[in-house]
């Protein structure tokens, strides 16, 4: 460089230009092939250009990067949100390792999506656990099946603005965090979100901000999210999802909801079959209903909801008829609506059970008593006989003996 600087300006400019261009090309080739590979260690923040240097330009609102297909991506970072966000202490270059200095190296992405996907493998450098969980998820499977729109980390989590989820002391999410989660999933699952919003769960999360009420991830899992799409195993294990909360008295007692729902479900035909299928043959397709077949999936309402609640007999009958088309008005009563039989609920069932609970010990007890007297006679006779004869067996006539019967 020193040599170059001393040559005449007319020869200097083209050579210098070429040199810089080569340098840029080399740097770009290197960084674009390894934009986010695991060996691309996160450099200590102190060695990286100060974030303010990037924000100097990128804080200006309305900046976009345009792609050859016409896409435009906002490249504005709100310094306020970034400063309050989860990544406030992370240097821009930790993630954008392929960008240093200005002008930025040219990016080969031809679409906005392609640009986003360049950063797909980046998050796992720090968020290894979550990235590994994501590997088995329905979203990753979709992506691997060739759907490039399937979400990657940044589609749910805005790395430039999102704060950590608010939690209470015990580490569980607050009601507001539940609502925030539902909002994230809504970005792609908007019709499901609208259904959910009208449900007893959705209103509890979105309106009441009640942390007891499930948001999407409480049922579907967070990063491990498995697809409910047609897989028999999802259907068969799904009652456990509902049971997680609905058998927990600590939650249910607050709202006066029964915790016997799982027990009573398993005790009935449907639940018995589903339980056996799940344990013995989890991929078995079944025609037996699980919780959501009767109660709804995302549009679950209160049991006394006039429109869909199953306490309303017409609603229950039409629910039964979806699988039992010939069912008539008596038929729904054959399902005990999660009640344990008692003199008030299902008295016939209760008293039949009661009769047997008396009959069984009575009959078996009487049998056992007689058998005990019979054993007593046999034992005492043998003892008496042995006493009388000094232990010598009589030979004539041969006394009945267990061993002589089977010759």
């Amino acid at each position, binding site marked *: 460089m020193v040599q170059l600087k001393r040559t005449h*300006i007319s020869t*200097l*400019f083209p050579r*210098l230009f070429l040199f810089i261009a080569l340098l840029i090309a080399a740097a770009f080739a290197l960084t674009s092939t390894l934009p986010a590979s695991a060996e691309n260690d996160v450099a200590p923040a102190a060695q990286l250009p100060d974030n*303010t240097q990037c924000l*100097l330009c990128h804080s200006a*609102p309305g*900046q*976009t990067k345009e792609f050859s297909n016409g896409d*435009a991506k*906002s490249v*504005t970072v709100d310094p306020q949100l970034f400063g309050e966000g989860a990544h406030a202490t992370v240097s821009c270059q930790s993630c954008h390792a392929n960008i240093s200095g200005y*002008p930025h190296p040219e990016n080969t992405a031809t679409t906005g999506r392609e640009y986003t996907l360049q950063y797909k493998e980046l998050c796992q450098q720090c968020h290894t656990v979550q990235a590994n969980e994501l590997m088995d998820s329905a979203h990753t499977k979709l992506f691997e099946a060739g759907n490039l729109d399937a979400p990657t980390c940044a589609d749910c989590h805005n790395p430039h603005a999102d704060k950590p989820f608010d939690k209470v002391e015990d580490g569980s999410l607050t009601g507001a965090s539940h609502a925030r989660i539902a909002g994230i999933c809504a970005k*792609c*699952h908007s019709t*499901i979100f609208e259904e959910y919003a009208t449900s007893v769960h959705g209103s509890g999360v979105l309106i009441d901000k009640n942390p007891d009420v499930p948001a999407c991830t409480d049922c579907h899992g967070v990063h491990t999210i498995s697809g409910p*799409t*047609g897989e028999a195993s999802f259907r068969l294990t799904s009652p456990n999802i509902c049971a997680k909360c609905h058998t927990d008295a600590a939650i249910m007692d607050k709202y006066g909801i029964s915790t016997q729902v799982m027990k009573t479900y398993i005790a*009935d*035909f449907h639940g018995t*079959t589903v*339980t*056996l*299928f799940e344990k*013995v043959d989890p991929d078995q397709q*079944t*025609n037996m*209903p699980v919780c959501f077949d009767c109660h709804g*999936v995302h549009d679950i309402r209160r049991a006394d909801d006039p429109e869909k609640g199953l306490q309303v007999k017409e609603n229950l009958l039409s629910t039964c008829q*979806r*699988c039992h*088309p010939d*069912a*008539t008005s*008596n038929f729904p*009563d*054959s*399902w005990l609506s999660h009640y344990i*039989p008692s003199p008030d609920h*299902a008295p016939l*069932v209760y008293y*039949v059970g009661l009769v*047997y*609970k008396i009959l*069984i010990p009575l009959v*078996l007890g009487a049998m*056992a008593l*007689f*058998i005990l*007297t*019979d054993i*007593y*006679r046999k034992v*005492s006779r043998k003892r008496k006989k042995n006493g009388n004869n000094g232990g010598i067996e009589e030979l004539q*006539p*041969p006394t*009945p003996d*267990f061993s002589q*019967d*089977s010759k």
Partner: protein
Amino acid sequence: MTEYQKEIMRFDKIRRIEHWLLFISFTTLAITGLVQKYPNNAVSLGIVTLLGGVQIVRIIHRISAVMFVLEAIFHFAYMGYQLYVQRKKATMIPGVKDVVDAVQATSHNLGLRKNGPKMGRYNFSEKAEYLAVIWGLVMMGLTGLMLWNPIFTTKILPGQFIPAAKVAHGLEAVLAVLAILLWHFYHVHIKRWNWSMVKGTLTREEMEEEHALELEEIEKGEVAAPIPPVVLSKRKKIYYPIAAILMIVLVAGLYAFVTFEETAITTIPPLEEQGTIFVPQTPTPVPTKAPTATPGPQAELPAGPLTWETGIGAMFEQRCGSCHGAMGGLSVKDYDSLMKGGKTGPVITAGDAANSPALLKLADGKHPGQFEPDELEKIIEWSNAGATQ
């Protein structure tokens, strides 16, 4: 062979075959039924897995049930034959004597009586067991058919009969199985091994203890006189058609009951057929590109002698000042700072624009801030002239 070990015929081949049919169907029903009653039990799970799943278990249960009922129909037909055609005594009917026998047997066991009761062809313990089987057949048959045809049942009866039938079916099964394990096993396997359902005979000694009265009758020769063949064939001619019609009606009824109801649809359509899962919200529009922030109105080009004070400084401030001077490093805020340079040293070589790093930096056109061409001309001119303040 002593007198005590003499074999006395007790059950003909038909009765023994009936017993084995009952044994097979009852045992199969008990196993395949109890695993459904206690689905969470580890043993149940093992058995269900072994048999190939709960659907197969249910099919086996129903086949065994049909076998059990068919055996019962045959049993009653054969019983009718024995009672009507052969005119045998109805020795299974319980009576007062059985109650007395039971009391006497118990007091004998307790040493309160010297001898046990003398009992007939079927003693009280056998009658109890036989009647329990009949009771079980009726209860299990009725409740089983209700469970098999729940739609039809609830057209006639209140819905609650279905779960009530299920409770009765399950608990009756528990009662039956426990009674067999306790009563039947004790009397024919534990007390002594009774071979009569295999060989058809009991020893004289066994007969003496359990059927003394019948033994006396046999030994006195009090057996029924043989029926003349003419009478026998006449009775058969009457009995066979009646029995055949009854059996056909019963078997047809059973067939109807186990086949006519298609209770439920066979599969529930998977969820994704019930709606579209991926429906993105209307995307937030990408903000329209704002006008580039840096270029302002072009500064007036300095006229006359080119110095920092007379306009060069103003151009640097306008074109470069938003970065250089705001972020550390090179500052263009005043003449001294510019001439001092940045981290890599001076950026303006007085009198030699071609070797001024600042101007070289601008040469490739990629630096974010740029001078307008006529501005650059003035800067070069100023620089070549000695870059004066």
